[in-house]
């Protein structure tokens, strides 16, 4: 089979191809490695490409498959990881100069899960530094370009992974989502991605941005591919106290369940001022398509959703300011030249190692936790966070799932919002409420706006309802081909 044909396959098809001997793991791996080599120069979606290691891994897995030792659904499947998942013996930069030299001594939980499942790690995806950003412009390793229009951003912070899927440089990647970092770039790049319920996947080995919000999730072409991946990475891990004990269902068995009678809630606050009219048009059309598939649509209200962005920009920076304290130049990461004394070591190492946005958030967070301001900022934000969560609890009394835009606009131009942090923050206005509530959210492509850029539908489920969400997106994808569209230049 040709390399181009291989890169158009779903995970299931790849698995079948490998396990029926149509092509080897090595051939599949090479197909993607070659695409990366050929196409990523322009996109910059990878920080590290692991050609030699991936080929070596492919060889081993080919053998294991031949010997019948490996047969799971991800056996032989190439994939990539956002560069904040620790990978033993492999550079893990978190998109930062601070970790430019950091070779992780251990594997993250999800890294070892994918390794054990027989996946082949192609490389590490570019990202906004420490997962802080909505455009992937905050990377110490250069901006990532959107395959649909290389003048545009791919979204962020999992922008590298989203762009890689859109250009078929990997069939599946893992990203992370703190306030929308899977869903917003997924929407901008026209790919499918799911941020599961907080706690569904262990955070062990995921370099922390905001611990109470961070959650890992797969991004791929289809909901089915996400479901296959989620089966491997979800579940309790004793190394993460916040990981959930709840049983993990087989996410693939319910994909074909009927969505007839499904009650979809549309939060009126998500369709108010701020939503780009082109995006609104596409969303409204897709909602009608869901009605045609038998769903019942109802307006719901999330009255406190408008407070989500300010709440998030207190809570997330506060946690980040503490989480990033360990990058002090003492044990790992960037250390300044010739420190004069301890204070100098700290100040210069951190000043030189962190980028602008990271420093901005450390300062905001430090301020919000300071004596005399804690009650007014952090504590108040946590109280409002509970109100936001309660809005969802109330809404889910009336509907099964909530739908709306993943982002207020399509991908914007590189540089367009780079100097306006608040405008940038508003790119996550529809994804942040879900994150604050700890609810699962996903995005899947539902078409293109007049500017030719993809639009994603956000689907929000109740706690641990990932199976139902994947089922709903899958049913839509069975009846549409938006998710299979490929930017012409990367075909």
């Amino acid at each position: 089979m040709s390399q181009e044909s291989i890169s158009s396959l779903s995970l299931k098809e790849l698995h079948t191809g490998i396990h029926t001997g149509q092509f080897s793991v090595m051939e599949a791996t090479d197909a993607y490695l070659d695409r990366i080599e050929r196409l990523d120069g322009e996109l910059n979606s990878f920080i590290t490409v692991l050609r030699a290691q991936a080929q070596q891994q492919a060889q081993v897995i080919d053998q294991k498959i031949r010997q019948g030792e490996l047969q799971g659904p991800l056996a032989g499947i190439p994939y990539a990881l956002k560069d904040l998942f620790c990978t033993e013996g492999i550079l893990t930069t978190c998109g930062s100069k601070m970790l430019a030299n950091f070779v992780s001594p251990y594997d993250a939980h999800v890294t070892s899960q994918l390794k054990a499942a027989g996946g082949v790690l192609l490389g590490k995806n570019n990202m906004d530094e420490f997962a802080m950003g909505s455009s992937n412009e905050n990377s110490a390793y250069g901006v990532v370009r959107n395959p649909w229009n290389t003048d545009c951003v791919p979204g962020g912070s999992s922008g590298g992974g989203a762009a890689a899927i859109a250009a078929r440089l990997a069939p599946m990647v893992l990203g992370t989502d703190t306030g929308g970092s899977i869903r917003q770039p997924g929407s901008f790049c026209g790919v499918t991605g799911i941020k599961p319920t907080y706690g569904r996947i262990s955070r062990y080995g995921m370099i922390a941005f905001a611990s109470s919000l961070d959650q890992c999730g797969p991004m791929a072409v289809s909901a089915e591919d996400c479901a296959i991946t989620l089966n491997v990475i979800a579940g309790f891990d004793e190394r993460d106290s916040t990981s959930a004990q709840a049983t993990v269902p087989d996410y693939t068995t319910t994909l074909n369940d009927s969505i007839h009678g499904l009650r979809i809630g549309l939060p009126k606050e998500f369709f108010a001022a701020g939503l780009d009219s082109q995006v609104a048009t596409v969303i409204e059309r897709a909602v009608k398509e869901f009605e045609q598939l038998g769903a019942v649509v109802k307006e719901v209200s999330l009255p406190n959703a408008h407070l989500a962005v300010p709440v998030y920009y207190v809570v997330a920076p506060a946690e980040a300011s503490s989480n990033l304290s360990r990058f002090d130049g003492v044990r790992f990461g960037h250390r300044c030249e010739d420190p004069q004394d301890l204070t100098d070591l700290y100040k210069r190492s951190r000043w030189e190692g962190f980028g602008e946005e990271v420093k901005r958030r450390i300062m905001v967070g430090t301020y919000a936790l300071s004596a005399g301001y804690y009650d007014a900022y952090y504590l108040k934000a946590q109280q409002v966070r509970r109100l936001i969560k309660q809005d969802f609890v109330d809404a889910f009394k009336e509907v099964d799932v909530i739908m709306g835009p993943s982002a207020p606009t399509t991908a914007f131009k590189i540089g367009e919002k780079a100097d306006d942090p608040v405008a940038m923050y508003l790119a996550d206005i529809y994804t942040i409420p879900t994150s604050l509530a700890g609810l699962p959210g996903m995005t899947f492509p539902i078409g293109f706006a007049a500017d030719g850029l993809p639009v994603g539908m956000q689907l929000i489920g109740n706690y641990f309802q990932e199976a139902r969400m994947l089922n709903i997106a899958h049913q839509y994808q069975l009846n549409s081909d938006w998710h299979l569209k490929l930017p012409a230049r990367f075909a």
Partner: protein
Amino acid sequence: MEWETVIGLEIHAQLATNSKIFSGSSTAYGAEPNTQASLVDLGMPGVLPVLNKKAVEMAIRFGLAINATITPRSVFARKNYFYPDLPKGYQISQFELPVVAQGYLDIELDDGSSKRIGVTRAHLEEDAGKSLHEDFHGKTGIDLNRAGTPLLEIVSEPDLRSAKEAVAYMKKMHALVRYLGVCDGNMQEGSFRCDANVSVRKPGQPFGTRAEIKNLNSFRFIERAIHYEVERQIELLESGGKVIQETRLYDPDQGETRSMRSKEDANDYRYFPDPDLLPVEITATEIEAIRATLPELPTAKKQRFMQTYHLGSYEADALTSSSELGDYFERVAQGTQDAKLAANWLMGGLAALLNKHELEISAAPVAAETLTQLLNRIKDQTLSSTAAKDVLEALWQGEGSVDAIIEAKGLKQISDTSAIEAMLDEIIANNPSQVAEYRSGKDKLFAFFVGQAMRASKGKANPSTVNDILKQKLEG
């Protein structure tokens, strides 16, 4: 008007868990630097803490022993500050909701009365690593073996009114945590240490400004440091000065406290609940299960010793200073049916040997059963008390069993009446002038005859038999 001293202590007790509070690394003391530091202890990017349940159980155990409220839902918080031996840039501690709230401990005062000292709270936290300033030529070495060791910080109310009270409180706590098995109490290794908050005021006035003396790791240092600090503050105030709120260090070589940093330089720790850890939920059932495993505590044991064994307050206090000593005493008291004798030997001969060799009772080479045999040899008149001391020394040196040593050293006491009579007859016959003097009223000479008898028997004659027979013969 006299000045009144006001002291509050913050005791740091290292919990006797095998592994660290948030990682599986060993807590054993004295390993090569950084050999007991896991990824979690190193604060590697991406690692997460997992609470050691044993540490929580020990904290609850302690809380129950001081009649404290156990917080049903306590929360770990991050205390943020930068220091090279603090790998994460924050210490995981408890702030607003500590696991142990409001309890108390009664201490004994010199006049025999007891005083109740309030314990505001006791919270769990992780220890930091150590900075090593020697041998690194202008740089600092970091040893993270200690990082993550579980600590229980026990905060008292400002109820202590003198250095003496502070030491009494500290000693009582020291005994308590060891009784409970929650801390090994090793002060030299830093397993049990305290910070003292000291201020002075005129009685009836509000509290004065306090200074905090850091890291006191011996009872003697606590007493001296507080004395010095109280004098310093009084002098300062009486000469028109002001005490400033600051952290001070005690220098045992100079016997003085020195300013370390003032309040203005103090960190803003930016406490907030640690999002990596769930709140610690403790049910009433769990609390009761732990309560059921509590040993007899020092105060109760002391009361029982005074009643059962008719010991005085001082002896009972000394013998209950550790549960091992109390157990040892009870075995000897029961084996000899003579609590007084057992108490005397434990606090006398045995205590002297323990002190000399700097050993705890649990490490004494003479077991309670052996001491019992020895004391029974005094009671059955085989040994004189003096000879018994020699036997104890020999037992300590491992020279054999009680009877074998008596035999080998020929220490068996002569109680045979006829042998003693014969010996005394000879002495009387050989000293006619002294006999005459005695009989004419010089009573003091009685001791001379006893001395002669002991010399003649090489100390082995039973002194009371000698006394009785000698009296008869001389009066006769």
